């Protein structure tokens, strides 16, 4: 036989394109066929036909041969691969039907793990990965005022109107500076008055942020120049659908806000609610002379080619100039530019990261479990595999079949998990930090989630399958065929799987336990006021009529009077911010006898309330008195402080009679005389704030800050159903002013629940993950120990035949299993300690170094681990020594 020609050698290489089995079967024949075809085309002497047309004809024929051969390969190689895959899948499905219990176990394991991962992925995707809805969002920055506190830390507050105009006029490094402010006007609809979330924005807002409407337009230069006078609004998609009937002709229609007619000029795209869940945007004036309160949210776009550092340098100059020009209000305030993206991803994403970590752990545990189950089953099927191996199926083929089986199982599990993730979408959306949810409209359960799910399923399936195949590769096939009990040497791998599973579960459960404990403590902590029988609500006072103090105060006092007179109402009061409210109003001050420069003033939380507030809330007045009707604008300005405040500033003195001097801010120069001390009101999300309370009558200012024009109402009821007074309250308010709607009505318990909602969800999920992990680890341990026992049947038989007692066999198995579990627990505790920083950031009521959870989890897992080993151990003792010896 002559040496293969170059052509033949090349062709042989190309045959590598075919699947292994096909190649093994038909390679010789295909090579020979090609050789013969080549011989014919080349027209050589060896039995072929002579070539009459000489060299050019020969070349042509050879070229045609190769072209045909290429085409043939291109057509048939993919076909063969596809055939092989189909057969593997068919085989896999058959395997599933034959062992439905096992398959179900694996599928459910995958479903739980992959589904959980998909869910968390959608949340992470929304918070961390999705692009901002603005054009070129990375060039946007948020401008804030920063102030250094006496202790050196920095605090950020909003911008003032005056500084907004200063920056807009002077900054060259920013190509668009825009302001936005949160409002809550009343919209007149067909069904009555409804409060909407409105954002007052400056003229360049849409342009600077790079936003385009879905319908209509945003304001034109003429309207922009006219400012708020032009009375134009852009609607959100949701509002347009809900209250304007999704009318395509809505552009040009008139709508009434706070009794003032506005023209609708456009509608934004679906899902856009930036900021704060906006439902409409209106062109607003920001008069620089009007007030110096820090309530504006200012955003700007970096000019082309300008870096953040360069812009910051210019802003530092501007803030210095402002401080020189207006020392009373601006000294000590710097301007900082922060990338807008950063604002969206804040502290609460720690929870998301925790979830990610937890769910990844569950996935790992599940994967380890499935690998061990598969390895055990592979050995159980070793006989069948050995037969197939002897019939020629190669190692590769077996590996591919195992992998395909697992990918099929993983895809089935993943599909189930996807469905579960879909149903869990809403509860998870509640977990998103509120402001992020508003930006993105909803948690997207879209293509990317599905792709992630499929990708993860395939990835996990392949990884698990390959691992299982590798672990089972050392099956001594000949030995199995001939009946000897020699099994795979995968015992060490299985043992380490038990350790890994246990360790992961320990880490997971410790974290979960900490979170749950924290939540429980926070929820059951004494809030400092009487929750039962308390109803709260918010009022929306239209700015046009209630911007200045006197009319607002008049309304508030009359409202309280009427509500008090209602049946079932024991007490009522109006306050700027309720317990559990978002946001805060700070009071900069100094104490009597202190000589502090304004920028080093102390700060306390500030609350203004009508008389009867403490009684309505049920906060105990510990010394002195609460507010009285006699505390009016003409009389001495009074204040009440809470215990935290008193302990901080007058630890050894009676707070009653002390004086607080307000500096800067809305009450600059006022001296408050402390007339009472009350108990602390606890917000579970924050440390106890030192609070100063002042009578509404004496502190009613001209302002459009939202907690001023949207104060809150607290009503204490006598009966058991606090909500029953609500209709009465509503009509009382309507009689006074039909344009003031009541909203966010809740009992105190509901408000607390809302405040704790995120924590609760996180704790619940963590517990669920921990439970999943525990179940999987227990099942895994049981399976692996059981499998190990079944492999060592002969050992036990021999030992017992030689006189070992059943008890010692039992102890031996338990000891072996127990040792693995113990190692796993030890490793898990180490991991938990290493991860404790991650969890500590979310804990408020529990010491992250407390040993309790660690000890509890270790003990629980030891018990469960041993219990899992018990049944296999008992089975080992039931070996009949005589029979094993006979089987040899």
């Amino acid at each position, binding site marked *: *036989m002559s040496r293969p020609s170059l052509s033949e050698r090349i062709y042989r290489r190309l045959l590598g394109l*075919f699947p292994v089995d*096909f190649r093994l*079967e*038909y390679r*010789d*024949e*295909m*090579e*020979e*066929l*090609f050789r*013969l*075809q080549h011989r014919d085309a080349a027209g050589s002497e060896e039995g072929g036909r002579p070539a009459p047309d000489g060299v050019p004809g020969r070349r042509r024929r050879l070229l045609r041969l190769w072209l*045909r*051969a290429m*085409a*043939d*390969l291109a*057509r*048939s*190689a993919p*076909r*063969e691969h596809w*055939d092989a895959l189909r057969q593997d899948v068919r085989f896999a499905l058959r395997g599933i039907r034959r062992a439905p219990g096992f398959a179900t176990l694996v599928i459910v394991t995958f479903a739980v793990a992959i589904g959980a991962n998909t869910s968390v992925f959608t949340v992470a995707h929304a918070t961390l990965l999705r692009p901002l809805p603005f054009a070129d969002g990375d060039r946007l920055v948020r401008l804030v005022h920063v102030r250094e506190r006496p202790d050196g830390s920095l605090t950020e507050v909003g911008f003032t109107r005056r500084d907004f105009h200063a920056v807009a006029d002077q900054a060259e490094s920013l190509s668009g500076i825009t302001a936005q402010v949160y409002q809550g006007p009343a919209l007149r609809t067909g069904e009555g008055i409804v409060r909407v979330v409105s954002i007052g924005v400056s003229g360049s807002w849409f342009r600077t942020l790079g936003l385009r409407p879905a319908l209509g337009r945003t304001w034109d230069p003429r309207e922009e120049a006219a400012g708020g006078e032009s009375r134009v609004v852009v609607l959100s998609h949701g509002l347009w659908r809900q209250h304007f009937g999704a009318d395509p002709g809505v552009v040009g229609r008139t709508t009434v806000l706070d009794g003032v007619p506005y023209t609708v000029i456009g509608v934004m795209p679906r899902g856009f609610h930036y900021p704060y869940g906006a439902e409409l945007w209106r062109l607003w004036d920001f008069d620089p002379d009007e007030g110096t309160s820090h309530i504006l949210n200012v955003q700007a776009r970096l000019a082309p080619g300008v870096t953040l550092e360069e812009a910051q340098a210019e802003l530092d100059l501007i803030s210095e100039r402002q401080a020189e020009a207006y020392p009373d209000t601006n000294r000590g305030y710097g301007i900082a530019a922060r990338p807008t993206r950063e604002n969206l991803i804040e502290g609460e994403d720690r929870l998301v990261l925790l979830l990610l970590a937890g769910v990844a752990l569950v996935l790992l545990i599940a994967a380890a479990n499935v690998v061990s189950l598969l390895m055990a089953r592979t050995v159980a099927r070793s006989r069948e595999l050995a037969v197939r191996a002897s019939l020629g199926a190669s190692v590769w083929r077996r590996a591919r079949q195992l992998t395909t089986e697992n990918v099929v199982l993983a895809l089935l599990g993943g599909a189930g998990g996807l469905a579960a993730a879909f149903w869990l979408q809403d509860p998870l959306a509640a977990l998103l930090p509120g402001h992020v949810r508003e930006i993105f409209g909803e948690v997207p359960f879209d293509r990317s989630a599905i792709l992630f799910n499929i990708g993860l399923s395939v990835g996990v399936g392949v990884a698990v399958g390959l691992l299982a195949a590798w672990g089972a590769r050392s099956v001594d096939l000949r030995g199995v065929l001939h009946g000897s009990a020699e099994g795979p040497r995968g015992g060490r791998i299985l043992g380490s799987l038990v350790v890994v599973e246990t360790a992961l579960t320990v880490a997971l459960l410790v974290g979960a336990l900490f979170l749950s404990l924290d939540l429980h403590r926070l929820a059951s902590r004494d809030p400092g006021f009487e929750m039962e029988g308390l109803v709260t609500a918010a009022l929306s006072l239209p700015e046009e009529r209630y911007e200045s103090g006197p009319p607002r105060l008049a309304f508030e006092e009359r409202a309280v009077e009427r509500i008090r007179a209602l049946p079932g109402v024991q007490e009522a009061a109006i306050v700027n911010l309720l317990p559990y409210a978002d946001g805060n109003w700070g009071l900069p001050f100094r104490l009597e006898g202190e000589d502090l420069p304004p920028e080093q003033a102390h700060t306390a939380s500030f609350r203004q309330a009508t008389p009867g507030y403490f009684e309505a809330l049920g906060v105990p007045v510990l010394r002195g008195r609460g507010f009285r009707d006699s505390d009016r604008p003409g009389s001495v300005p009074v204040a009440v402080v809470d215990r935290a405040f008193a302990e901080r500033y007058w630890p050894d003195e009676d707070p009653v009679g002390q004086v607080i001097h307000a500096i800067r801010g809305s009450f600059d120069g006022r001296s408050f005389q402390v007339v009472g001390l009350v108990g602390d009101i606890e917000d579970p999300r924050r440390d106890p704030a030192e609070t100063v309370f002042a009578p509404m009558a004496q502190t009613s200012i001209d302002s459009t800050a939202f907690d001023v024009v949207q104060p809150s109402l607290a009503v204490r009821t006598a009966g058991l159903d606090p909500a029953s007074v609500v209709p009465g309250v509503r009509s009382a308010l309507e009689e006074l002013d039909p344009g003031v709607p009541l909203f966010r009505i809740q009992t105190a318990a509901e408000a607390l629940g809302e405040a704790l909602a995120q924590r609760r969800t996180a704790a619940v999920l963590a517990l669920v993950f921990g439970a999943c992990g525990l179940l999987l680890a227990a099942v895994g341990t049981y399976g692996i120990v059981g499998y190990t026992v079944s492999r060592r049947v002969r050992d036990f038989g021999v030992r017992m035949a030689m006189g070992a007692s059943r008890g010692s066999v039992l102890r031996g198995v338990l000891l072996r299993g127990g040792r693995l579990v113990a190692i796993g627990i030890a490793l898990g505790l180490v991991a938990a300690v290493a991860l404790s920083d991650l969890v500590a950031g979310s804990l408020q009521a529990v010491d992250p170094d407390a040993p309790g959870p660690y000890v509890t989890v270790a003990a629980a897992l030891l018990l469960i681990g041993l219990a899992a080993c018990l049944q296999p151990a008992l089975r080992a003792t039931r070996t009949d020594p005589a029979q094993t010896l006979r089987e040899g």
Partner: protein
Amino acid sequence: MTTEREGIDHHLPLTPAAFHVLLALAEGDRHGYAIMQEVRETTGGRVSMGPGTLYGTIKRLLAAGLIEESRERPDPDLDDRRRRYYRLTDIGRRVAAAEATRLEEAVADARAKRLLPEGQALQGVRP
């Protein structure tokens, strides 16, 4: 329980490649190269199978039970290498016949609808 007819119909229609391979084996056992040559001659060079297509088809026909490996060596003097010979199985023969019938009926339909003039042979078929 399937009838014989159903067992045959299950395989129809055959791909052109499969049909030609079965045809090539109708007159006796052949090995791969011979099948390829036979197909090429029968179709006048119109159908020319490469090794991949040919053996892929052979593999599928084997799996379907329409052909089998032959244990005999019809050309011992031509054969000095390990070649595999294939032959039709019983059912393979019947399936090929059924396919031919199906094609014939299709041609008759075409004639009836005047797509083909009467009596004209299909191109490429050896007389």
